[in-house]
């Protein structure tokens, strides 16, 4: 069952259509990627999920029930353009946002202590936000997003502004949150992190959904009948009527070959023709990166 559903969401700003019958289905405990070029309508969709703006038509469901104003307490949101009150102290600010999310002061304090310790920013409690580095501010903001233990968390470009070490910390925290039962919607341009983290994605372009499904399935579908083979030693494989050789490399006592079949055929049939050539150590359908798919899909429409 989907934890969150958006059905046929349409939103117009004057004559501009920001979303045109967009639907997403986010399974429970899934990391769901929301992709698309700039101006595609992602932010509008995220704002609608957060009930910052309402859709012109379409329906939203959380846990199978219609999305209600009180549901903001079970949703966490880290916007792309994030901000904190610059003149306010870090601790006070975190408390303020926690209270806006419905936590009592004592409960908020208890959880804040835990998170500040966990992300190693206890010393910054009494500092003003403007004294913090950007990465530090991001950490504070991350904490305010997840503090009320939301069931659904929306991260819009969560890794920008982080150095690789801190980005990794945040990545692990996201995985940890999923482990603990949270469902995550994750909007990004960083396709590497999509492959790494996302289970499912929806690709939006010009207000419409143009690609959706699980990451693995999509990559398999877009794999243009290409396979990577690795042989032990120096091996030579010849083209035949089943496939063409795209590349043939011999390095470090290994031979790497990429081939492309002429049509859809069972991998066993390919294996049969190459097995005799030498000692095969790996055979993989070559999956295109999400980056390639993104570019190909979007460019084909422009």
């Amino acid at each position, binding site marked *: 069952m989907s934890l969150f559903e958006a059905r046929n969401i349409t939103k117009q*700003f*004057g004559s501009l259509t920001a979303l045109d019958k967009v639907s997403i289905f986010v399974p429970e405990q899934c990391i769901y990627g929301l992709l698309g070029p700039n101006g595609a309508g992602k932010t509008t969709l995220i*704002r609608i999920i*957060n*009930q*910052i*703006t*309402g859709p*012109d038509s379409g329906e939203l469901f959380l846990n199978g029930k219609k999305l209600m*104003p009180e549901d*903001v307490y079970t*949703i966490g*949101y880290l*916007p792309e*353009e*994030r*901000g*904190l*009150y*610059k*003149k*306010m102290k870090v601790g006070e600010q975190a408390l*303020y*946002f926690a*209270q*806006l*999310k*419905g936590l009592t002061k004592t409960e908020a304090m208890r959880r804040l202590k835990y998170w500040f310790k966990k992300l190693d920013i206890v010393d910054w409690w009494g500092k003003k936000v403007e004294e913090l580095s950007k990465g530090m501010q991001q950490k504070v*903001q991350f904490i*305010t997003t997840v503090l009320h233990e939301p069931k659904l968390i929306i991260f819009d470009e969560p890794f920008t502004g982080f150095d690789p070490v801190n980005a990794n910390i945040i990545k692990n925290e996201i995985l940890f949150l999923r482990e603990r039962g949270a469902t995550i919607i994750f909007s990004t341009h960083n396709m590497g992190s999509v492959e790494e983290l996302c289970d499912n994605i929806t690709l939006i372009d010009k207000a419409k959904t143009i690609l959706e499904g699980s990451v693995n399935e999509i990559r398999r579908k877009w794999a243009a009948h290409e396979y990577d083979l690795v042989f032990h030693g120096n091996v030579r494989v010849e083209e035949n009527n089943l496939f063409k050789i795209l590349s043939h490399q011999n390095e470090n006592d290994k031979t790497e070959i990429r081939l492309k079949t002429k049509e859809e055929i069972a991998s066993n049939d390919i294996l049969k023709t190459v097995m005799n050539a030498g000692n095969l150590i790996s055979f993989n359908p070559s999956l295109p990166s999400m980056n390639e798919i993104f570019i190909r899909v979007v460019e084909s429409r422009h």
Partner: protein
Amino acid sequence: MNKISVIIKREYITRVRKKSFIIMTILAPLLMASMVILIPVLMLSGDKEFKKIAVIVNGSDQFKEGLKNIIPDTEDEKFEYLPGVDVNDLVKTFDAAGYYGVLYITPEVLNTPQLYSKKQPPIGLLEHISSSLQKEIEKQKLLGYNIQNLDSILMQIRTNVSVSTRLVDESGKLTETSTDVAMGLAYFGGFLMYMLVFLFGAQVMRGVIEEKTSRVVEVVVSSVKPVQLMMGKIIGIALVGLTQFMIWVFLTVGAVTIVKSTVLGKAAIPEITQNLPGDIMSENQPVTEASQSTEMSPELTEISKVFDNAMNQHWLLIFITFIFYFITGYLLYASVFAAIGSAVDNETETQQFMLPVTIPIIFALLVAMGTMRNPESSISFWFSIIPFTSPIVMMARIPFGVPFWQLAVSMVLMVVTFIAFVWMAAKVYRTGILMYGKKTSWKEMWKWLRYSG
């Protein structure tokens, strides 16, 4: 509701804790007081440049003799009587000769003497010349009637009239009042209203812009409705304004009580006269030590009377109407300011929107100044009814007494208008705070008004 209170609390506490708030709260009354004292002092002192003025009188010898030295020298002006000089020559050279100007008097234009100068002469100088001449001419004319003992008669008939006013209410009760006090209060009330509404309204705008440019707003509105954020901010800042106002009221009441009990208390007079500036001291010198402790000097009696008259004002009414107009006027303007703040990306962009908002306020202030002279004029009446100007103008009218129905109409209109504006501002605000990078126009804002949720 709970969330609004969280927002109000934040807005209130962060502002009240600021150093600038504490400094303003203490400094503003001092500044006000010094302004009240300084402006008359500066106005009286005028420009201190010494002026030498040549006086040329034409006509018969008798006429010349009669007008000789009739304009007395003052501290800053010296009038030099130059017989036998041609005015046309001197007009060309007076500057080089060290004269500020040339005063030319002939029998033909006795009532309109001519003053030649390089610069526009100050009003004080002109008044001095005309009053001196006027007195002299009147005296000359009186002399023509051959009245005996003219000088002593003139001394005897010199009088000074000051009207003391008593208001009669329906029950026939008399209250001694003072138009001076009413004028002072009108000025003060109108100006304070203007300051508070504008100052704190602009603070709302700055707060909204700060939230928008720092992008805090996106996080906040994912937890609360934009309207809640807007109202929380407006109410929070209103409370800051009320707090400041209350502190000022307490300080004033405290100061007045202290002044009344010490300065105007009879026993304290000797100390005071010692502390008063020299010129008042010298006037008080004839009063002996003994009489000082038993009776007040004339100046202090006067001040004491003003104080008593001030006490007779309807303080409670003034206080209540002030609070009412501050709250409603502030809500009206603050919501407009909030809408403007939401529509722009930074403070410099607010200029184009500020003008239409500032104009009614400036008008109100101008009318309020006129109201002090003529509280019953129809322009004062209308401006105290129209919601955009009524808070300031009504405050200027209140000390002179306003019919109940006018106050009621003005207040009802005010409430209706502020509700309408808060509602419209909320709609503009809701769309505006999430719009970036686009220059907004009034037309655009009008469109936002009609967007659905």
